[in-house]
Each structure stands twice: as C-alpha cells, then as structure tokens.
C-alpha cells in the first residue's frame, strides 16, 4: 500500500472524476469527427462541391486545437490522477494490460500525426492523398476506442481472467462487444452534434443547411442504435452488477440519461426540419446536454464495480480480494486479518504499529484513512463523508461501531473490514467519536 493522498473537502477520487468527466468531451469527438469529415470530403470531391471544404477545414481545426490539446492532456490527466489517487489499482491494470496500452499508444501516434498532417496539408496535396490521410486518421482513431473499451470493460467484468489470468480472456469479456457497439453508435451521434455546432459558423447558407441535415441524420441514427445497444449492454451485465443497479441510489443519474437522450433526439429532429434556426449557443448547449447524459452513464458504470476497483479482484481501497493462481497472487484478506493492517502497510508511524490504550484513537484514525478514505471523506463534508454517515446510522458507541464493522462486508457494495479484532476496535473507537 502506497502513501495516501487526501484532498480536503473533495477527495482524491473526485479529482480523478473531474478530469475523467471532462475527457469525455474531446475524446469522443476525436474518435468520431473524422468519419463525418471524410464522408463530407468524399462528397465534396465526388460531386465537385469545393464549397464544402470550408466546413472540412473548420471541423478539422476544432479537432486539432480543442480535441487534441485538451483530449491528450486530459487523457494523460486521468492516468496521472489515477496514479496518485489509486496507485495500486493503476499498477495492477498496467501489469496486466501494459501491452494493450502500448498498442493503443501506437494508434495515438497515428491519430495525432494524422490530425496535424490532415489539417496542414488540406489544399496542398491531391484529394486522393488527402482522403487517404483522412481514412487513416478515422480508422486509427476509432481503434484507440476498440482497445480502451477492452480495459474499461475488464475493470467491471473481468470475464474468465480470474481463472486464467490471460490478457485476452479479460479483454474480451461479456460486456466488451455490447459496450463497444454502444459507444461507437453514440460516437457517431456525437460527431453529428459537434458538426452542427461547427456548421452554425459557416457563412454559405446552402453548405450550412446541407451539413446540418447530414449531421442530424448521423445523430438520429447514432442515438437509436446507441439506445438499442445500451439494452444489450444491460443484458450482458453479470447478476452481481445488475443487483447493484437496483440497490444503489442512482435515480437522479437515470433521469439525467433519459432527459438528455430525449432532448437530444428532439433537437436533432428540429435540426433536420429547420436547420436555419439553429444558432451557435443552442448548439453548444446541446453538446453540454449530451455530455451530461454521458457523464451519468459513466458514473453508473463506475458505481456498478463496487466493492471492487477492478476485475472483481481488488477492493476499492486497493487491497487484493481474490486469489489469482494463474499469476501466483494470493488474496490479502486472510493475511491482513491474521497479522494486522498496521503491520502490513509500510507507510505507518512505528509507534502506531502496535495498538496500546494511549495510541488507540490515532491508530483508528490511520486505519480509517487506509481503508475508508478512497471512497469516504473523513471530515464533515466531501464525497460520502464519514461523519454524517455514522451519525445517520447511529453509531455513537464503540461497541455498536465494532459490531457494524464486523458485518460491513455483507453490504453488496462494501469491502469487509481488514485487520485484527484489536484494530477493528481502534477503528470503532475513532468512528464512534465522529458521531459525537
């Protein structure tokens, strides 16, 4: 277990969440936009409509400057913030999927060089060459999604990986294809929605109308397909995750998704019927609304992983829950319960390793930090803060807290307490003090 990072009020996970949420905006744009762009560019050359190139250039510039500056950095930002928020989890993922990420990296190079060369060579190379550059970019960029979805899906549903430890057994798990199909469909809708925003800035009215109509068709088809695959995705979830779907408090997230999809669907129909009335502010608001829907979906997906952080293998607090014989890994639960958490974790003040009456409270606090802080802020406020939580449950005596901790693993979304009975009593003392 590594040193911990606490972020006052918010929590470390929240910082990761902010960056990951923002990343959705540029990342889905970057994988999708060029499909639409190449589609329009092909029409421009085939039907000899050079006026369409104005749109091509504008859309490519949005990609270059917005999607690739903020997309690259927020993508790396997810990795960096996960590194400091949950180092053992990112380490576990990397030690399984390093070649996956390294492979994705090659496609990153293709797409980033792709957008720069595509943008700067527009009009400077023959159309045949330029279209090839566009196709290479479009396919290469989508392939990054083909790879990352494998790792994302693995985090929730590790498939046969727990038995075999195999890269592809975890990668091609039961939710992989439904999720890939769902994301790819919504990706085309997002390409359309962004294209509409770009089209509002185009001066040539005919071009504007044409792009908007085409883009709205992409959007409508993408959304319908996405919704169908969404149900397939739900169906592919294993029983434990489906059970969480009914237990967890996700009502407002669900409503956000439904409202967002409903709004976007009506908006796209409006764009199709009356492209001329769409102005930039409405188009930007629509991007924000689809973004809210995606955000809610991603949040639910992350919550469904509980009590694990990945692969039904590592708990949210980064302790290994299960054996993985294929890689010679033992779970840490039994060992910690025998030896004690304060003995096992390296970054512990020496005076706290053995609990005595005078250090019991401090030890309890440190145990809370180690075991609870990845999901619960220790103070009054922040993400799922412990203080109001213990008050609500009514844990005001150490004995009550101790009994509660002993049974905590029976919540389907909570990891069990890890440590000796003495350590549990120390944590109980600390928790009950919060309620006072």
């Amino acid at each position, binding site marked *: 277990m590594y040193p911990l990072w606490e972020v006052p009020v918010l929590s470390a996970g929240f910082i990761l969440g902010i960056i990951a949420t923002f990343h959705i905006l540029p990342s889905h744009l970057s994988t999708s936009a060029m499909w639409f762009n190449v589609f329009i560019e092909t029409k421009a050359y085939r039907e000899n409509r050079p006026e369409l190139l104005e749109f091509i250039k504008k859309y490519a510039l949005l990609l270059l400057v917005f999607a690739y500056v903020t997309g690259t950095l927020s993508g790396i930002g997810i990795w960096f913030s996960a590194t400091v928020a949950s180092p053992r989890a990112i380490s576990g993922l990397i030690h399984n999927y390093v070649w996956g990420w*390294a492979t994705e990296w090659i496609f990153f190079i*293709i797409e980033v060089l792709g957008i720069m060369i595509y943008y700067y060579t527009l009009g400077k190379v023959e159309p045949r060459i330029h279209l090839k550059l566009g196709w290479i970019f479009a396919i290469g960029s989508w392939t990054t999604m083909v790879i990352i979805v494998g790792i994302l899906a693995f985090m929730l549903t590790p498939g046969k990986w727990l038995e075999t430890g195999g890269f592809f057994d975890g990668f091609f798990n039961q939710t992989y294809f439904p999720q890939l199909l769902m994301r790819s469909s919504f990706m085309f809708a997002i390409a359309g929605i962004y294209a509409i925003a770009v089209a509002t800035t185009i001066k040539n009215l005919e071009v504007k109308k044409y792009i908007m109509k085409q883009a709205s068709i992409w959007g409508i088809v993408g959304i319908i397909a996405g919704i169908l695959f969404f149900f397939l995705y739900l169906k592919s979830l294993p029983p434990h995750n489906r059970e969480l779907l009914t237990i967890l408090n996700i009502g407002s997230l669900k409503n956000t998704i439904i409202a967002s999809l409903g709004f976007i669907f009506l908006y796209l129909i409006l764009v199709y019927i009356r492209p001329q009335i769409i102005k930039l502010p409405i188009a930007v608001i629509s991007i924000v609304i689809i973004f809210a829907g995606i955000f809610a979906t991603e949040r639910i997906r992350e919550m469904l992983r509980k009590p694990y952080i990945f692969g039904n293998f590592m708990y949210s607090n980064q302790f290994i829950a299960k054996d993985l014989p294929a890689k010679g890994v033992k779970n840490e639960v039994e060992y910690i319960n025998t030896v004690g958490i304060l003995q096992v974790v390296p970054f512990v003040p020496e005076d706290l390793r053995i609990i005595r009456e005078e250090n019991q409270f401090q030890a309890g606090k440190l145990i809370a930090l180690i075991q609870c802080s990845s999901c619960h802020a220790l103070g009054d406020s922040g993400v799922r803060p412990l203080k109001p939580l213990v008050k609500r449950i009514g844990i005001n005596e150490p004995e009550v807290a101790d009994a509660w901790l002993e049974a905590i693993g029976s919540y389907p979304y909570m990891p069990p307490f890890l440590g000796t009975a003495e350590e549990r009593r120390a944590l109980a003392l600390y928790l009950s003090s919060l309620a006072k």
Partner: protein
Amino acid sequence: MNISQMVQGLVDPMGIPFYPIVFIILSVLTFAIHIMFVNFVVGSAFFAFYGAIKGGQYWSRLTKSLIKVTPITNSVAILIGIAPLLFVQVVYDPFWYVSNTLSAWWVIGFILFLLIAYSSAYVFYFKYESSPGVGKLAGLIAVVMFVLSAYVMHSLNYQALLPEKWLSWYIKGLEVDTSGTSLHASQIPRLLHFLVPAFAMIGIYFMLYAWYFSKREDFSADYLNWVANLGAKLALYGSLVQAVVGFWWLLSVPSKFSFHTNPFFILALLSAIVLIAYLFKAQKNPISSAVPSIVLAFITILFMASAREALRLLYLTEVNYSPFTYKVNIDWGSTVLFFATFIMGLVIVGYQVAVAYLSGRQTRVLEETPQLRKWGSLSIALLLAWLVIVAGLGIIITIRNFF
C-alpha cells in the same frame, strides 16, 4: 520493516507479461526520442519568444515558423513521453508511485502547467500577427510553463531514486502527511543537464530547417544561410555549455557509484566528444551538415539515456532492488499484439510523415505517385486487417468463454 523489505512489499504481485530487459530497452529508446522533442519544444518556445522581442526581418520570419511548429513538436513530445512513463511503471512501480503520491498535487499540477503551456503556444501562433502584445505574452507564458513542467517531472523522477527518505517525507510523529503539496527533492545540475541541451538541439533543428526549405523557391538563400549559421553556432556553443554542466552533474552524483568508470557513462561521453568535434567542422557548411548532426546528436542522446538508466540501477541497488528479478508471467498473445502493431505502425506513420515531408518541401500541390498510392493503400489495408484480426479473435474468445 527495513527499506528493502518495504520496497519488495510494494512491488506489484501480478508480475510482468514479458522479460524486464525488453521493457527497459523500450523505455530507454522512447525516452531518448521524448527528451529530444522536449529539447525542441523548449528551444523553439524560447527562440520564438526571443525572435518576437528582437524583431527584424529574419528574426520575425523565423519566429513565424517557430510559433507554428512549437505546438506540433510539443504534441509529439507529449505523445512519445507516454511510452517511457508506461514502461517505468512496469519495472520500477514502487519508486514511481511513492514519489507521485507524496507530491500528488504537483502531479496534477504538471498536467495543468502543460495545458497552459500548450494553449499559450497556440495563442502565440494564432494571435502573433493580429495582436503582437498578446502573442508575446502568451509566448513568455509558454516558456515559463514548459520549464516549470520540466522541473516537476525532474523532481518526481529524482524523488523516486531516494527511497531512504520517503518515510521522513510522509510520517510526522504519529500523523501522516497526506496533503501531497510538497516537492521534496531536486538536483539542479541534473535538471540543467536535461534542459541546457535545448539550445544545442534547437541549433541543429535550425540547421535542419535551412536544409529542408533549401529546395523551396519562396525561401531566400540569404535567409536560410542566416538560420543555418545561427543554428550551427547555437549547436556548438550549446553543446560546449552542456559539457560543462555535464561535469558539474557528474560531481553531484554520489561518489560511491564511481559513475565516471561506468561503461555506459564512458560511451555517452565519447559520443558527446564526437558530436562536438563534428559540430566544430559543421560551422563551415551548416546546411549540408544538418542531417549528420541530428544523427550524431540522437546517438549521443541514446547513450546518455542508457547511462541514465545505468545510474538508476545503481541507485536502486542500494535498496537491493533490481528490475531483472521481477516476477515474469509471460503473456505471448499480448506481446505479439504489441510488436506486430509496432511494425505496422512504422509503415503507417512512415506514410503520414512521407506525405508531410514531400508536401512541405514544395510549393505546388503534391501529386500522388504510384509509390505513394501503394503506400497509402497498404496503410489503410493494414489498419483494416488489424481490426478484422482483433475482432475475429474477440468473437472466437467470446464464443469459447461464454456460449
């Protein structure tokens, strides 16, 4: 629990999917490319700003070129930087993760500084002509932020080499410091040894610039000669200063490592001497010396990156850590996936770069030669073949495992 046991306890229990030496070689190779581009970025950001302040016909023209390429080289630098950072986390995970968590806000800050630098570089590009004041300010911000990012990354890497200090940085009496607000260690000569070469490397970059555009009729020979001569001087004097910094850095390395006798260090030193000797000669004819200069410079960087790795191994031997004893759980499938994709990537990236190279070297529209046509079609075919193979594999595994 002593430090050595602590480090062993942190090592990821899942092992690694291939032999450690392969990850180390890939990490050194990609780091060398990364740091070369970092030098280009820092150098071009610096001279873009300098040229904007200095003014004059030639400097203005050079600045206009530099503000266009800074975001591009920066993008490549970031992109290539992903790989060494990934491989470091494979074989040196305990060191990297402790260093990062102890300075967590700086890890997040690094991203923010880079974002500001990157955006400022674009503002400089788009605004320089319409509002030079804003452009110059953005240019200055970019330089400062790039240097700050370099400082943070240096510090995170250096802290990783000092495991004996970690506990004292984290534990305060009975409390632990979970704030992540401090950078705990840095070594100025080491940082300078990464940054000073920006002057030498941008010099070689200027020589390459003059060589590349020498075929274009819209670039005057006088201007290109001026850029090439400036570049050759920068390359030479930058390298000489770097040599001095190098000795300063060598003196700051703990003497117990006797690093001056290390074969990797000696190789790096020899290649640096050859480079400097060549740069002396290159002053006479900088344009035709451009390509050999960059080749020699890259070889030097590669040897220096290897020496850096050798030094890291020495530091970590102090806590009985060796990446070569890392538990290996070979995964042939994903290893083959990576290397096959890597080779395919060379073909495709080669095509993209070839188009950019050919198109930039002439003013008229680039026509598709039969070779380019084949190369382009092959690139697309490879991408599609990759998808078909991976999807096929996915379908087979899904059917086998779940139906």
